[in-house]
């Protein structure tokens, strides 16, 4: 059994997705049960599906000094940083602790692969990249974190975590370890993934993409809707921000089963959940809300619904919010961590949008419609290809663990 960790303060957080820019836009859309999905108008060739696209990203420009990092993924990162005063909060942390004492830990599945795809669509007659795409840093998976280190002026540990769809959940775990060991005094964590042909046609090739808006945990669900998002959180020790919500715990585990389908009994997901509860010092009955991975793929939802049914009492409420945002892949961990934090702040359990005809595997924990109730403790599940599982536990400040 793992010992509990000392909870950390989440001094600032923000998200930008198909639901809009910043926390208020997300809260409003959740409250109104309004999905951000739309018919696919993104891929370079037609593909019948729905996407969670961030509006207006084409008109976002990076500052001139950062123009070498120009690509859709870094534009979304830049747009995301401008929301909810997040940039100012990072600047303050950098000034308080020093640039080398603030870590930058980013999750992404495909980073700016969209730029590499574009370079291949416009190869020179000699077969090489066009001149304007000869910018090596954007053709590497560290592009996002490299861009953010330059944009934020941070000089501490800087790492990209890329474990597919658990990426930007696992950054919280890395940050907690570095803080606990005294290597840093603050960490900017988060993740960004943008729509690109690789994931649209890749998931389509795996027959995992729905032609209609995704329906998580519906008995007739038939695949995912892919989305894009940016999300960030600033972590510090609890005494530095006594009134901020808390990261209580985290769990990480591997399925050891299959590259693209989950363990049939949800073994890795359950190990991650148990570790998160142990580190948070929580019993299952103390959990008020769980934001589920709930992708609307056949297998994920079947396995995850069974796990929730056997591990939690009916008083714990659970839902997937991918019907709102689509599956934002490497950004799903941070986006749904932010939704869990909004649930705590506003006492809003978001309804499981798209689940009109619940799968019989779903227990009484499922919130099919919005519920207004106190949420003191919230979990967020994130599972990725390769059997990579993560679970995060958050709480409001008043609850001192």
């Amino acid at each position, binding site marked *: 059994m793992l010992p509990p960790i000392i909870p950390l303060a989440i001094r600032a957080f923000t998200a930008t997705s198909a639901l809009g820019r910043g926390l208020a836009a997300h809260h409003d859309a959740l409250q109104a049960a309004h999905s951000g999905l739309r018919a696919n108008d993104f891929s370079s060739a037609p593909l019948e599906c729905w996407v969670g696209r961030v509006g207006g990203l084409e008109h976002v420009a990076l500052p001139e000094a950062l123009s070498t990092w120009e690509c859709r993924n870094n534009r979304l990162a830049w747009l995301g940083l401008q929301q909810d005063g997040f940039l100012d909060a990072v600047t303050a942390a950098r000034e308080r602790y020093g640039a080398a004492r603030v870590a930058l830990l980013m999750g992404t599945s495909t980073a700016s692969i969209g730029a590499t795809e574009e370079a291949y669509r416009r190869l020179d007659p000699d077969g090489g990249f066009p001149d304007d795409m000869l910018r090596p840093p954007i053709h590497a*998976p560290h592009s996002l974190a490299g861009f953010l*280190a330059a944009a934020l002026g941070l000089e501490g540990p800087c790492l990209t975590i890329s474990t597919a769809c658990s990426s930007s959940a696992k950054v919280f775990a*890395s940050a907690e370890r570095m803080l606990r060991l005294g290597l840093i005094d603050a960490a900017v964590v988060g993740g960004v993934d943008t729509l690109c042909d690789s994931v649209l046609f890749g998931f389509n090739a795996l027959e995992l993409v729905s032609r209609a808006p995704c329906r998580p945990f519906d008995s007739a669900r038939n695949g995912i809707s892919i989305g894009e998002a940016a999300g960030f959180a600033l972590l510090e020790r609890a005494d530095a921000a006594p009134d901020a919500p808390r990261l209580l715990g985290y769990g990480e585990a591997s399925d050891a089963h299959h590259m693209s389908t989950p363990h049939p009994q949800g073994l890795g997901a359950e190990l991650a959940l148990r570790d998160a509860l142990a580190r948070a010092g929580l019993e299952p009955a103390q959990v008020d809300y769980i934001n589920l991975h709930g992708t609307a793929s056949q297998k994920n939802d079947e396995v995850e619904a069974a796990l929730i049914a056997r591990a939690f009492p009916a008083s714990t409420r659970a839902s997937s919010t991918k019907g709102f945002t689509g599956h934002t892949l490497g950004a799903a961990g941070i986006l749904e961590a932010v939704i869990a934090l909004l649930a705590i702040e506003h006492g809003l359990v978001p309804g499981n949008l798209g689940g009109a005809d619940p799968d019989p595997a779903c227990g009484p924990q499922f919130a099919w419609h919005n519920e207004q109730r106190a949420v003191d403790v919230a979990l967020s599940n994130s599972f990725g290809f390769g059997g990579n599982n993560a679970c995060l536990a958050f709480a409001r400040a008043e609850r001192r663990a």
Partner: protein
Amino acid sequence: MSMLSIYVDGVGVWSPALGDFAALRAMLAGETVPVPPARPPAATLPANERRRAPESVLLAAEVAGQAVAMSGRDAATLACVFASSHGDQPITDYMCATLAGTPAELSPTRFHNSVHNAPAGYWTIATGCHAPSNAVCAQRASFGAGLLEAACLVRADAQPVLLVCSDTAGSGPLLEVTGCAAPFACALVLAPQRGACTLARLDLHLCPGSITDAPAASAVPADWVASSPSASALPLLALLAQGAGRCRLMAAGSLGMDVHLEECA
């Protein structure tokens, strides 16, 4: 800055010139070493997986298998960190070329093998490992950043950890922007305490500031180090082979990491 002390219980190496850690030791002692086969045997993978695994997975599984065997530990219980600056470049090249021409024909298998954590996935499946697994990168600093992440796991949770750092060679038009001339892979099994198999103790100190201008004095040929971002591990691997000394790695773009190595064998 704080110091992290960890112990090295196993080492794996693979490059076009070196088939394992013993070959590196022999090379540094002035001996001629046999050239390994082009395709890493990756014997830890089941035969059917070995046949269809992409190059990035074969490289990582080969060195991971070497290091774990040397450590005498059970792979099923080891948390693991797989670092790679560029992932599987032949797959990225294939995917971008296919998407530019016939996107609807993209191979589903190559797509799921394209995730950065494919080596971690294949490894945990092959070894029945349910411990946390991670896949990371940090441009040219991937080895140092991966070592820092692994050392944090070792010290924070008092557990042994497998670290793998590997890159395939560049492929197609992508080669021009990645500059990876040759494949390189290495692995370390790291532990919180000295044990029967321990080779050395590493003391890691973070030192603010870029080290890109610092001279790289090492016993290994400079063109080997330049051939792959993962080969930035070679100065540390050379110290392990020789027994003691200091080197400086990049832990991030603007963060150096001094490594002080003491022999424990």
